[in-house]
């Protein structure tokens, strides 16, 4: 049992927080992203914020209310957002040619912020999973929170153990944002293929 607990609560690896080597690595990683015309993300777990940047400039920022993690803390490295996963992904509307001309009353058919999920997982390269959620306000959100509890404290630790036994890297990070809209806006802003990195405490 102790052995299992040891595997599950793996000690963190990584450099000392404010060491010049770490800061240098952080700047180097960011500079390699800032040189490109693409937007990039930084999950700053110590500063409890998520930023979307371009050319070293913050374009948008989201404050993190709480953060927890399982698995290894990794050395700073550029990651790619491989995919976003949610129970009910937003669906694009299909336009029927000629429908607008048939005298139908105008109906807005568009993907908007309110269509985005507020609870979802981000799959990054190198076996890193980030679970994003917001503060539950309504009953259904409360039910989702219970689901999240079982996922985070039962399923994810088992996955961590499984990856360890297979000697594969695994990191799961749980992030709670203040409001539903913040969580939805983050989902909207991070497109598949976006690059960035996670900065651990």
């Amino acid at each position: 049992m102790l052995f299992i607990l040891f595997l599950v609560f793996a000690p963190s690896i990584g450099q000392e927080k404010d060491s010049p080597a770490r800061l240098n690595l952080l700047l180097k990683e960011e500079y390699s992203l800032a040189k490109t015309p693409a937007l990039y993300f930084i999950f700053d777990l110590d500063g409890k914020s998520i930023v979307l940047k371009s050319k070293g400039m913050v374009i948008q920022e989201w404050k993190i209310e709480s953060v927890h993690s399982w698995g290894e803390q990794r050395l700073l490295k550029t990651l790619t957002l491989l995919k976003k996963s949610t129970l009910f992904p937003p669906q694009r509307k299909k336009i029927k040619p000629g429908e607008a001309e048939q005298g139908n009353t105008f109906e807005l058919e568009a993907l908007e912020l309110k269509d985005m999920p507020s609870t979802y997982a981000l799959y990054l390269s190198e076996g890193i999973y980030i679970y994003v959620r917001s503060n539950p306000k309504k009953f259904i959100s409360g039910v989702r929170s219970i689901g999240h509890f079982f996922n985070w404290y039962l399923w994810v630790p088992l996955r961590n153990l499984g990856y360890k036994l297979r000697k594969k890297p695994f990191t799961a990070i749980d992030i709670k944002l203040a409001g539903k809209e913040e969580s939805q806006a983050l989902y909207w802003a991070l497109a598949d293929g976006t690059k960035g990195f996670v900065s651990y405490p």
Partner: protein
Amino acid sequence: MQALRPKAVYIVIDLARNTLYLKKGSEIIRKAVISCGSGSILEEPGGKRKWVFDTPRGEFYVKSKITEPTWVKPDWAFIEEGKEVPKNPEERLEAGILGDYALGFGNGYFIHGTLYTRLLGRSVTHGCIRVGDNDLKAIYQAASIGTKIYIF
């Protein structure tokens, strides 16, 4: 990294909130309610072509500035209305619906005006950015060729 940042005014477009910011450094000079791409899909009958009406994301720059722009309707505009795509190029021209100014940022995408001001704040366009008249004038006057545009 400071050297990479724009020194002059630049534009930030928040697609999720349909908001445009004209900024210099960290200062917001102007904030405008806009309309962005609907994200809807149009398929040509017969399945030959497909369009996804997203506003592109990333870093761009102003490539052209036009006054009193005329819309050259692309094929999808006719297909969406259930009409035949005209062979005569002059049948594609539609004046007066893009407002007083337009700023092009590549691949046929523009920041331009709109007749549908009641829909500003909603994601209703086919990819372009629609702005109200007063805001558009201010942005047009402030921006120049090469002004950076960041869209997320």
